[in-house]
């Protein structure tokens, strides 16, 4: 009798563990893995799924069993057992979860340090606090932290390396500056003239992003990379990843940034190095005479000569934003004044002149 019980309990536990392990490998809950970080992430995630599935089955199974087994029968008004506590049992169910969560903590720490998806140890705080004029305070619609701390005169030429130079040494991380603004992403490839609204990266090469926000908080999220980083006005945040699968993946804004938040998305294209090279060359060539770059340049030269509407509409077109968007942007423009445009220009200056 007693041995039978032990066998039964062992069988139930083995079944639960087997089911949990099977599920942890076959849940299909996550999207495609497209970066090395995603592989590390998924291993951790699967381990956690195994643990939580086992606990889930144990608890829910226990509840259902108890509801059937211990339901009050008709006419039975007696009480159950006066079982107040059981020291050993309580020690066990305190110790096991403690060990489990400690293990989860250590494993997570390990994965976190290997992923190094974000590195805040080196977060620059220097240009974080800077006083601004009363005039700027009066116009709260756009931040000026970047504008204040960077030279107001464009110094593009002296800073620039020949386009495509960064491709040459693929052992170095590819640095891309990301700027988030309502409701678009702008990617600047330092060392080139390329300013785009869609990100292109070569497969297998480490990419390092410097992220900034122009107005409110946004968050840069690529589900296929399992990585996300908030972009915060006035603070530069970082993110690193190594894409390992060719394809086009969404870049999604994950932090509420206003009415059109759900539409703030673009794509990242992971290409072979050759494809990436030709994209880079093409973009660099186009950059010199495309309306997009012309628009940027015009703004850089003399932003005060353009009306706000002119400026943003052109920019919106340049960024290939949907036809629906301009109404929202126009609303936005109507609330802005030239002062903000000046800041915007400063931003664009900084975007093309840094690094």
């Amino acid at each position, binding site marked *: 009798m007693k041995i039978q019980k032990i066998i039964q309990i062992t069988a139930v536990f083995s079944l639960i563990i087997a089911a949990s392990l099977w599920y942890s490998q076959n849940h299909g809950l996550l*999207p495609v893995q497209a970066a090395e970080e995603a592989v590390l992430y998924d291993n951790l995630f699967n381990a956690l799924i195994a643990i939580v599935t086992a606990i889930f089955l144990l608890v829910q199974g226990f509840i259902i069993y*108890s509801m059937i087994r211990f339901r009050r029968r008709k006419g039975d008004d007696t*009480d159950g057992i006066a079982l107040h506590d*059981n020291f050993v049992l309580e020690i066990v169910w305190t110790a096991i979860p403690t060990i489990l969560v400690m293990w989860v903590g250590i494993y997570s720490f390990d994965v976190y340090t290997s992923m190094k998806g974000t590195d805040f140890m080196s977060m620059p705080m220097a240009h974080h606090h800077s006083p601004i004029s009363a005039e700027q305070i009066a116009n709260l619609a756009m931040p*000026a932290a970047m504008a204040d701390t960077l030279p107001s005169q464009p110094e593009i030429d002296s800073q620039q390396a020949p386009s495509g130079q960064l491709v040459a040494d693929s052992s170095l991380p590819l640095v891309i500056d990301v700027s988030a603004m309502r409701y678009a992403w702008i990617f600047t490839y330092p060392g080139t003239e390329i300013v785009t609204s869609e990100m292109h990266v070569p497969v297998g090469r480490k990419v390092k992003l410097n992220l900034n926000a122009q107005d409110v908080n946004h968050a840069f999220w690529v*589900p296929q990379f*399992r990585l996300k980083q908030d972009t915060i006005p*006035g*603070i530069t945040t970082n993110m690193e990843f190594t894409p390992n699968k060719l394809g086009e993946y969404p870049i999604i804004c994950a932090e509420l940034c206003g009415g059109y938040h*759900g539409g703030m998305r673009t794509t990242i294209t992971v290409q072979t190095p050759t494809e990436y090279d030709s994209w880079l060359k093409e973009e660099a060539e186009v950059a010199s005479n495309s309306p997009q770059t012309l628009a940027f340049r015009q703004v850089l030269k003399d932003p005060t000569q353009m009306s706000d509407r002119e400026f943003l509409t052109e920019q919106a077109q340049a960024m290939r934003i949907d036809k629906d968007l301009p109404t929202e942007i126009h609303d936005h423009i109507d609330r802005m004044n030239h002062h903000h445009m000046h800041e915007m220009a400063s931003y664009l200056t900084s975007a093309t002149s840094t690094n």
Partner: protein
Amino acid sequence: MTQVIERISATQPPEPSSDTTHWREYFSFSTDHKVIGIQYLVTTFGFYLLGGLMASVIRAELATPDTDLVSSDLYNGLFTVHATVMIFLWIVPAVTGGFGNYLVPLMIGARDMAFPKLNAVAFWIIPPAGALLLSSFFFGAPSTGWTAYPPLSILTDQHVGQAIWIFSIILLGTSSILAAVNFVVTIFSMRMPGMDFFSMPLFCWAILSASGLVLIATPVLAGAMILLGFDLLAGTNFFNPTGGGDPVVYQHLFWFYSHPAVYVMILPVFGIISEILPVHSRKPIFGYKAIAFSSVFICILGLVVWAHHMFTSGTPDWLRIFFMIATLLVAVPTGIKVFSWLATLWGGKLRLESPLLFAIGFVSMFVVGGLSGVMLGSVPVDIHLHDTYFIVAHFHYVLFGGSVFGIYAGFYHWFPKMVGRMLNEFWGKVHFVLTFVGFNLCFLPMHLLGLQGMPRRVAQYDPQFANINVICSIGAFILAISTFPFLFNAAWSWFYGPKAVDNPWNALTLEWTTSSPPHPHNWIGEPVLATGPYDYGVPMDEFEEESMFTGTID
């Protein structure tokens, strides 16, 4: 204190010597804790229905991938006010002000709360604050989420709505603090002779822990709100990077309150569950001290986990690791509670009626929220899942599957005591089944949405998620419909239900030793502490240990 109470009762206009509470009391500045408790419960339930209405509009909008039902600004306003109402006008005041006020004095054998007038003031802040919040819809509802992160909340187009939001949060926080002071003093100083802390019902432990959290954390929220208000209205730059402010500091201040707020919403419900399970399982609570201390432990740990809401916001690495470990550790005391409840069921005589069904539903659903919480506690896992529908699923499993199921369990359990009439059991079961099915249909698939790449707080989304969202919306409508059997049941039973006896469940806590509904002074004579709160059950030696674990008790 007795002096205060006597003076107040002398000024009560409707029949001071009456044995019953006049209905007009419920619409007055009453100082009777039972009246105030019911005022809280009914008022907050009204707000719950309004919050639910907003949720229904949100789910209707999300039934299609495009923004086609409401404008995107109104959509943002709806989910902002939905969350604010559900947290500050429903769960927090219902579980502390509602159940806490009604039950704590009755459970500890007191005549009233320590400060009856303060108690009434705390309640009467709520209806105007709630009305104020809802009025924001006329001026452009606050649309920056219930988190109201700057700079968005400073640059928002809905300036007036945002200011109204800040002001109503400050008011509601004040109400919450006043109520908490009252609970702490009442529990410390007004327990009847012979009742020490360890013979107090566990609900009182839970309210004590939650009140401690409110007292420590809510002032910080008030501070954050005042600073945000200055940034918004006076052009200061506490959080505005344009003027050198730091938006991340706001997040720290906000979450220093708002994470403990989760425990304010769940600890009293843990208490409710610890009361209901023993009564309806006919067994003592398993591990009284473990449950009591785990409440205190959760309360302490709960104060040092706030930055796990900010793993992607720019916190330094060492801070993330610290908050990850602290967060994961919360699973330990929470696990102790869950396992103790399960052990309470084991070998009992489960009376599977509405109170126990909802209580078991609570345990079952809360475990899901707890497990996804452990996953989210891990920094790398959270980085992918932060601000996605996985989070939406997680906190609804904690706050709906947890808190709201627990509140319903409490309604069914204490309704006979509060009203003096029984609820209809059949409609109670219908309510449970609809709620359980609707809830899971609505929120379970959201885990998948988040993992696959759908961010939260969006009115439009990638069409690949359309089918799953339709399932969620169907679940939400079932959930909305599930409220009606309860409403009709409660309304009808309030007037026409069969009369309840003093102790319909054969429970042992003190509130069941008085009449149903209780006398305005709680007991006509002195309350008598005959047994401990959980002394159910046939002594162990009458059972063979073998039969206990094989379950052959018949």
